[in-house]
Every structure is written in C-alpha cells, then in structure tokens.
C-alpha cells in the first residue's frame, strides 16, 4: 500500500513560507481596503483569500522539499520559497505598446499578477459588498425611528457638545449646519411623500457622513 510521504521533518519550517504568504496577502488586502482591512478578515471570503495566499508559498516549498532525495528541510529554502512566490505572484511582463482611440499610448503587460487580480476580485469583491451591507444595516437600524431631519439635526447639535476635542465638535457642527442648509433648500415647495422621501434621504446621508467623522462607536451618542 502506498504511503503518503511526510510534508516536512520539522513542521516549524512550514510556518516561514506560510507567514510570508500571509504578510503578502494582508498587504494586498490593505492596498484595496485601507483602514477597513481588519474588517475584511471578519468575512468568510476575506479569510479564504488571506489563508489561500498563505498556502501558495507553502505548496511551492512542499514541491521543492518532495523533489529532493532524501527530502531535507531548510529554513533558508523556506524563506526563499516565500519571497520568491510573492515576487512571481506580483510579476507582469511588458509585451509592447498599444495606441488608444484618443491617441494616447498605453503599455501592454501580462503576467501572473493578472490571475491574482482576478482571484482578488473574486474573493474580495464579496467581502466589500458584505462590509457595505453591514454599514447600511448599522445606519438604518440606528436611525430607524427618525422621520424628521430638522428634529434630528436639532438634537445632534446639542449632543455635539459632548465631544471633548474642540476640532471634532466643530466638524460635527459644520456637517450638521451644512446638511441642514441643503435640506432647507431642497425641501422648498415639497410636501407629502416627496418630503418624506427627502427627510429619509437626508437622515441616512447624515448618518453616513457622521460615521465617517466619529466612527461607529460614538455615533449613538451623537444621535441619541
């Protein structure tokens, strides 16, 4: 009966390419999502992407390990597999120039990076949609009982006084005043369902704008 050969004589060595792959994967996530990167890792597709990026250099190392006779572990080879596979995954080769209809010249380059880009879009697009859905659910739940935009800005203006840092307080007051002025302008001559819709749109927009300024945790204090 055929036996499965051991993946490594020293399991610790597999951690080297795995960690290097994870670092490269997280860097890609950070490039796409910035400050929201850690939230991406709370989504299933984000995790799958991150872990799979960690596993790619492990597989490369494993191929190198199994090709030896007899197989022998090496931390140096493990590190080289980690760094090397990251370099290959980011590579694109210049193929030539192409003239656009507007006359501009564009470089044509193809490589493994195009495959990585496709894989990123496949996995991380779902994560982006999920994060946007979470922000929407948070704001809509927080402001579900609000129907009157002017009443909300009145309360929020008083609540802004709770902010200890003068600069933050001023930003919140500026936002409140700015949106209130725009609402009053847009609401002129409106009534009935159209005014209700305008109220709802400005209430939710106010929620998203304030969340950008103070973050999710402080938002209930601003709108209570």
């Amino acid at each position, binding site marked *: 009966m055929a036996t499965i050969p051991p993946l490594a004589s020293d399991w610790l060595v597999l951690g080297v390419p795995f960690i290097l792959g994870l670092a490269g994967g997280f860097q890609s996530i950070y490039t796409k999502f910035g400050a929201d990167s850690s939230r991406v890792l709370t989504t299933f597709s984000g995790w799958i992407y991150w872990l799979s990026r960690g596993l790619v250099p492990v597989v490369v190392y494993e191929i190198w390990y199994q090709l030896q006779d007899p197989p022998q572990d090496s931390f140096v080879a493990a590190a080289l597999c980690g760094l090397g596979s990251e370099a290959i995954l980011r590579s694109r080769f210049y193929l030539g120039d192409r003239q656009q209809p507007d006359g501009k010249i564009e470089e044509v380059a193809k490589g493994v990076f195009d495959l990585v*880009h496709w894989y990123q*879009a496949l996995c991380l697009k779902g994560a982006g949609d999920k994060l*946007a859905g979470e922000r929407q659910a948070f704001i809509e739940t927080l402001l579900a009982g609000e129907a009157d935009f002017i009443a909300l800005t009145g309360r929020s203006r008083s609540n802004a006084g709770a902010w200890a840092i003068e600069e933050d307080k001023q930003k919140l007051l500026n936002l409140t005043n700015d949106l209130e002025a*725009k609402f009053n302008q847009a609401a002129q001559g409106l009534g009935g369902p159209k005014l209700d819709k305008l109220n709802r*749109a400005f209430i939710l*927009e*106010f929620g998203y704008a304030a969340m950008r300024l103070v973050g999710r945790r402080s938002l209930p204090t601003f709108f209570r």
Partner: protein
Amino acid sequence: MERLPIELDEPVKRIFFTIQDHKAMPFLEIAATTGIRGDELEEAVTTLAKEKLVTVSKPNDLFDSIISISGKYF
C-alpha cells in the same frame, strides 16, 4: 489600472472613483462622501451601471441599494 471604456463627466467620474476607492457603498453613503445627491446622483449611478462599471444590488430600488465596483475595475 484598467482604462475606462468611455469619457465620463466630472461628477460621474468622481462618483466612480469614490466607489472604486471603497469597493462597495450603500447608495446614500455615496451622497455623504461626494456631496452629490438627488437626481444627479441617481443619473450618475444609472449611467455607471449601464456602462457595466458598477453593479447595483437592487436595480428597482436604487435608494436602498449597495453599489459595487465591477470586477474589472476592482
């Protein structure tokens, strides 16, 4: 970055790059971020969706939709 297939007006371009930056956004979050709202925002998002630059989660209810960048421009 992948070139845009058409020339976009300045506000539409601003909305596109905002969505590209965030990857996906609720419709009214775009208003909160760009300051473009109402009919102008609706028309811009409809144009972007028609050109397949973004996808709209609920095409019949833009107001309540999540707008995400298409895979090609992710």
